[in-house]
């Protein structure tokens, strides 16, 4: 017997435990990709239940079905056009009113749906009790209370879902607007019903009255007259109320959501504020919040780097231990050299960076995000980030950048507009990643003095600030302000955090591994063909004349494109010593590190930039940063001795 196929989509606000429910439902059978042609993530998973193969789609967490973000567009198109068999609306029980606002919009889309009333335990701790049976009656759909992180109610959710699909859907009541609005909705709905339109008529009508660009555009093509009628009627509504039609519809929808919420919830006075409240008050405190944040971030960085250094060395020693064995098998001829030096070393390089640094970085950040602390950091950092035209949320990719610029560039997706994504990505490519930290500490820190290493970090921050500000002024468009929900602190769900880490890591591996390996192979080939020295000679006007460095450093800077810490390793190999003090003056070390720190991050970051913004912008950033690094290096060479006397 072949199993029947079903598709169920999960929809709801951000941070309501949607991905936890997704994980509880699908376990290991997951696949993360992108929505076709969009930089929006699509998480899919399958499960088998009562003779059905059920495909679960985890839609992005959103607050509305307007056109504010790509996520909203993707979600509503999916629900209205692809028509899943059922939508499970996941709702945070402790913020029922706002969540219900989204529920009402889903109901307007006319999709078969049920509701998961999640985090009921947290709601109860806050003193909110919800009569889910009453809610069920009002909404005309099953409402299942769940505690996703414990798995409570998830089975029932599935049972009820299948039940509803077998029954052929639900009959939710129409949520009515005020009569003066409703009258006009009826008029337009009648017109839309006559034309072939891919969205439900009543929903499309409401969107037209709200001034939804996309629906307007689509209607214009098939029924331009309807658009005129809608505009006229919208104006009439505006005249009655004195607010824009979009405002009126949104308010009325919220009023309805609030009415329902008040009917079903009972607020019990709390005896004392729950722990999460106290934690929130302290971590966002006007004075205390900042030192706590600095300490927390430093502690995280410190432990990740300690762990990373240790593991990286361990892995590296392990791999390099195989070298003799490898050489005895393939010899030390050209082929052997190419395979070892190109492919194997490329893989080693990728693994020794990806696993020890990037995996814990992702894990910690997701842990912080899931618990709610990241949004508090964004709140505290908002003022500072505004100086470079970004808002507080941009601090999240910036933090990621200290681990590796590749995930940081991809992490810029959390910004709302294209302009901000680009600006944030540009800034993150200047953040000294783990590899650059290796150079700063390994060369300047070890041979010139730790105060100089610190000075370089400060210079880097100044550069980021200045360039960020310049880019902010140069890019057209208005900076956007922060609008962000700060959900209650909660215990993160480790399995979900682990999964998210794994998927991110996978994405990182897919982007960077092939490039690092191909790049290593190419450079190895150049080395074997003795092309490196001529190239170093060609570069000597820059390296020797302008930067005052030995010609050989030109080669190392080329290698640095693969991954930054190679510049240091190569320097040792080419100079024939790890005691850099013998071959370089302190000034040369500072200049070298400065240039290595500032010029393009690495090939993998460039690839990430291409992926997110197209090759033109990626190329521009790359070329700009190379020129800028060389410029700053040369200037410093000439200015620094003057300061030192």
């Amino acid at each position, binding site marked *: 017997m072949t199993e029947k196929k079903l598709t169920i989509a999960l929809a709801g606000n951000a941070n309501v435990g949607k991905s936890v429910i997704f994980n509880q439902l699908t376990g290991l059978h997951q696949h993360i990709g992108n929505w076709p042609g969009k930089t929006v993530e699509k998480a899919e998973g399958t499960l088998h239940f009562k003779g059905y193969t059920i495909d679960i789609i985890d839609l992005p967490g959103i607050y509305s079905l307007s056109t504010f973000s790509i996520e909203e567009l993707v979600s509503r198109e999916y629900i209205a056009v692809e028509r899943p068999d059922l939508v499970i609306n996941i709702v945070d029980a402790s913020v029922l009113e706002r969540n219900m606002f989204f529920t009402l919009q889903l109901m307007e889309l006319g999709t078969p749906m049920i509701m998961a009333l999640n985090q009921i335990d947290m709601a109860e701790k806050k003193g909110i009790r919800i009569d889910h049976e009453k809610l069920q009656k009002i909404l005309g759909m099953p409402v299942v209370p769940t505690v996703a992180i414990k798995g409570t109610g998830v089975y029932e959710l599935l049972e009820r879902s299948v039940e509803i699909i077998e029954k052929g859907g639900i009959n939710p009541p129409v949520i009515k607007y005020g009569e003066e609005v409703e009258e006009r909705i009826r008029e337009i709905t009648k017109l839309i019903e006559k034309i072939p339109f891919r969205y439900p008529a009543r929903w499309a009508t409401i969107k037209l009255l709200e001034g939804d660009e996309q629906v307007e555009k689509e209607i214009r093509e098939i029924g331009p007259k309807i658009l005129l009628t809608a505009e006229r009627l919208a104006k009439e509504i505006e005249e009655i109320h004195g607010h824009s039609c979009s405002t009126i519809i949104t308010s009325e929808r919220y009023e309805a959501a609030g009415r329902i919420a008040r009917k079903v919830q009972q607020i019990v006075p709390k005896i004392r504020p729950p722990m999460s409240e106290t934690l929130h008050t302290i971590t966002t405190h006007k*004075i205390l919040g900042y030192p706590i944040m600095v300490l927390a971030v430093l502690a995280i960085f410190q432990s990740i780097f300690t762990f990373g250094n240790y593991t990286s060395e361990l892995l590296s020693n392990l791999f390099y231990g195989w070298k003799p064995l490898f050489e005895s098998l393939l010899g030390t001829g050209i082929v052997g050299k190419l395979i070892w030096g190109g492919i194997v070393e490329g893989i080693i390089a990728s693994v020794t960076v990806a696993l020890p640094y990037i995996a814990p970085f992702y894990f910690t950040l997701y842990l912080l995000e899931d618990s709610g602390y990241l949004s508090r950091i964004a709140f505290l950092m908002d003022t500072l980030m505004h100086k470079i035209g970004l*808002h*507080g949320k941009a601090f999240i990719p910036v933090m990621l950048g200290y681990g590796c610029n590749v995930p940081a560039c991809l992490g810029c997706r959390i910004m709302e507009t294209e302009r901000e994504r680009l600006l944030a990505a540009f800034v993150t490519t200047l953040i000294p990643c783990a590899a650059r930290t290796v150079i700063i500490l390994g060369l300047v820190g070890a041979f010139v003095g730790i105060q100089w290493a610190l000075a370089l970090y400060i210079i880097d921050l100044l550069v980021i600030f200045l360039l960020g500000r310049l880019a902010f002024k140069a890019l057209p468009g208005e900076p956007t*302000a922060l609008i962000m929900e700060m959900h209650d602190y909660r215990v993160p769900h480790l399995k979900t955090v682990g999964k998210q880490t794994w998927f991110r890591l996978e994405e990182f591996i897919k982007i960077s591994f092939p490039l690092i390996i191909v790049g290593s192979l190419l450079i190895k080939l150049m080395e074997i063909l003795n092309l490196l020295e001529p190239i170093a000679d060609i570069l000597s006007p820059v390296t020797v004349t302008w930067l005052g460095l030995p010609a050989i450093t030109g080669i190392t800077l080329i290698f640095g494109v693969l991954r930054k810490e190679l510049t240091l390793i190569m320097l040792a190999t080419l100079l024939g010593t790890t005691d850099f003090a013998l071959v370089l003056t302190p000034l040369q070390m500072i200049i070298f590190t400065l240039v290595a720190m500032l010029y393009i991050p690495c090939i993998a970051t460039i690839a990430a930039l291409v992926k997110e913004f197209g090759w033109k912008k990626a190329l521009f950033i790359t070329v700009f940063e190379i020129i800028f690094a060389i410029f700053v290096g040369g200037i410093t060479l000439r200015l620094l001795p003057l300061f030192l006397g």
Partner: protein
Amino acid sequence: MERQRGIKKVELPLTALRDGESGIVTSVGEGPGRGYERGRGGWGFKKRLMDMGLTPGTRVTVIKSAPFRGPLEVSVRGSRLALGRGMAERIFVEITK
């Protein structure tokens, strides 16, 4: 929507409220960006505020504001929002005294 009953009303931007004070939203300004960036800078962000629950007639409470002209933490419709100052300046509220 609530109407005042002959009591003196004061209309202020949300940023003028002290910590712990609350008011009723009267209007949300479009701000710059309308025209060349419709759906993004101006209109889109007004819609976003509405979608987050800051519709006219709603009670909003300023919990606290971050120092150095930082964002505001507000409580609206039972949820906690962080609003950038630029955004909060465009939200007008009425406080009854």
